[in-house]
């Protein structure tokens, strides 16, 4: 039986080119469909159309239709997981969100505690239930979001790039849980969009490739090939040396303690960030990688002393300091100060220190990034991947001596990745800059990074082979 069938569907947002044109897709009940394609191709849009959020919240269907199956005489129940974990909760704590959701689904009050228990065990969030959602890390929020949709007992799960900002361990855990969820009852269907196909073999998905507004259903063999190629790329280890003790440093941390809320996250007796090098920072979700960056940029308080060029950063005026040490936020939207792409670029050009990104060079980079001719687009209407690229670009133009990148590669496809790596490397070398990168996606990173810092068990240590 078909859970979802789409015929000749065309869709566009107001005053824009059609994102989807004459698209056909059939998803059989009980199968896992994996939709893959480069960032900005319209994967999220398609998922929102299936969920019925579009065209209700913008855009218009110009042709075709989506048919959703009815199961036991009730309409198909759908649960959707969004790309941005922080923006899918209306309540303050996971427990309240779960209660709110189950009340909406008209679950009898006596059954609600059991349903909450079941869903939170399933996603292992029992210890997070009464914490404020804003204090949870991105990965924890995504586990909570999955618990909420699972609690709804949907027939169809729609997941939009659910693992974009999640570490490998959580990704594997969630994929395993999704497999269990589907197997628990016949007819349960899952549709996932992901630009990165690794780790999906266990779900045995039906792979669809998104190209030029249309979907191509791949054969079982082709799908398996794509997944195993992605698996190989993801498992390649990093080969970087440990920094030599004599290397010049730019940031020094002495006896620093950093926490989130009341919880202690990181203890750093002594740590140096190497000058004019690119350092990768890794660690499991919720260990405090983003929090570490926030401390370095004085967004949150900490104990101990952090020195920038031998000067305590608390003694430098915030305006001056932030012009020296920049942060590319995890949420791209927070970086933007203007409305259109063109205005954002002009703003950065006013205080530009990066000679590599002027006039002709910039036009070229915009073309490589797939942002050419988009000067008049509102930044918030760009796709997740396009926004990430624009955000990185406007920050690289400024040319901070120290630049911190928090998940700059989340939601970027393979082709974008190599252009982004290339640009970061060139910009870094031309000034030169000191760059720190938090990333869950490690594919190809050993070409880019010089050193590797790992956060584990509240400690930050350099990893790699002794030079």
């Amino acid at each position, binding site marked *: 039986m078909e859970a979802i069938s789409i015929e000749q569907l065309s869709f566009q947002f107001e005053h824009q080119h059609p994102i989807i044109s004459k698209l056909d897709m059939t998803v059989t009940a009980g199968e896992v469909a994996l939709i893959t394609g480069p960032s900005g191709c319209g994967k999220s849009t398609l998922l929102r159309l299936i969920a019925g959020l579009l065209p209700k919240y913008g855009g218009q269907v110009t042709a075709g239709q989506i048919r959703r199956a009815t199961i036991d005489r009730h309409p198909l129940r759908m649960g959707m997981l969004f790309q941005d974990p922080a923006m899918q909760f*209306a309540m303050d704590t996971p427990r*309240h969100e779960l209660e709110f959701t189950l*009340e909406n689904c008209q679950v009898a*009050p006596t059954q609600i505690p059991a349903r909450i228990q079941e869903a939170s065990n399933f996603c292992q969030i029992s210890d997070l239930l009464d914490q404020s959602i*804003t204090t949870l890390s991105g990965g924890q929020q995504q586990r909570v979001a999955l618990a909420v*949709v699972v609690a709804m007992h949907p027939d169809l799960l729609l997941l939009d790039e659910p693992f974009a900002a999640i570490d490998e361990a959580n990704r594997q855990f969630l994929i395993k849980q999704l497999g269990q969820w589907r197997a628990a009852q016949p007819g349960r269907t899952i549709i996932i969009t992901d630009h990165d196909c690794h780790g999906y073999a266990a779900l045995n998905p039906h792979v669809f490739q998104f190209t030029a507004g249309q979907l191509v259903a791949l054969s079982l063999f082709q799908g398996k090939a794509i997944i195993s190629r992605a698996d190989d790329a993801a498992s390649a280890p990093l080969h970087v040396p440990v920094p030599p003790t004599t290397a010049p440093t730019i940031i020094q941390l002495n006896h620093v303690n950093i926490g989130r809320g009341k919880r202690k996250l990181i203890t750093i007796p002594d740590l140096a960030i190497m000058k004019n090098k690119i350092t990768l920072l890794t660690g499991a979700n919720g260990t405090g990688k983003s929090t570490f960056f926030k401390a370095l940029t004085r967004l949150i308080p900490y104990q101990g002393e952090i020195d920038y060029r031998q000067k305590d950063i608390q003694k430098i005026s*915030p305006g001056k300091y932030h012009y020296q040490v920049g942060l590319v936020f995890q949420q791209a939207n927070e970086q933007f*100060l203007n409305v259109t792409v063109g205005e954002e670029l002009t703003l950065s050009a006013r205080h530009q220190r990066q000679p590599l990104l002027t006039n002709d060079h910039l036009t070229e980079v915009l073309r490589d990034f797939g942002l050419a001719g988009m000067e008049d687009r509102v930044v*918030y209407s760009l796709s997740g991947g396009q926004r990430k690229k624009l955000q990185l670009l406007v920050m690289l133009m400024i040319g901070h001596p120290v630049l911190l990148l928090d998940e700059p590669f989340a939601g970027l496809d393979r082709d974008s990745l190599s252009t982004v790596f290339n640009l970061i490397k060139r910009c870094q070398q031309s000034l030169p800059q000191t760059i720190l990168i938090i990333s869950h996606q490690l594919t190809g990173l050993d070409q880019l990074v010089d050193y590797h810092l790992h956060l584990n068990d509240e400690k930050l240590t350099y990893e790699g082979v002794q030079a």
Partner: protein
Amino acid sequence: MNPSLKLFLVLIIALEVTFTSYLYSNIVIIILALAYLIYRRVRWQRLAWLVIITLVPAIAIFVTIAFFSPGHNVYFAWVLVSRLYVYVMTGSAVSCTTSALQLVRSLEQNCHLPSKFAYGILAALNLFPRIAQEVRLIRIAGQMRGITLHWWSPRLYFKAILAASQWADQMAQAMESHGFVEGQTRTSAHRVPLTRRDWTTFFILVVVLQLLIIALP
């Protein structure tokens, strides 16, 4: 006491106090509200803040009426000051002892307020800490690109409003994808009781209020 009834009681008190000008009844109400706050173990620091912050407009009003109004009416100045404290103390008696979620649940279940309205308000309330955070972040995002945004910069608020409207749209989609449908019946995980005792307390307090206003000078 039931959160909705508590809210209505406070609204009635505010209305009556606004249209009458008796000093002693105001003082009695303030003392009762304070006693209730202490009985419910609201933190001392919080109480002290309430009193101190209110002092600023209170002094301004007192000085204006007592020294600069045509009649130099000191009694009326005290009435206005006490009125201000009645608003703050009774308001805190609700807000410090009831969470927004409890109040919303009560309004939905006991007063049959449309759930769209109730949860819309709640979602907006949950956004407030994020807006404060956002404004801080915008300033830093500006500094990182060589721009200083002062607290009076229109760009700061323009961007904050833009972000809020973005959230509003995303929030609506999030609520919908979590099964919320406008006008559809919902069950309730926690029943908010509205007992005979609640009603009795409510009416007794309303009567006491009238007596206070009539009996005291």
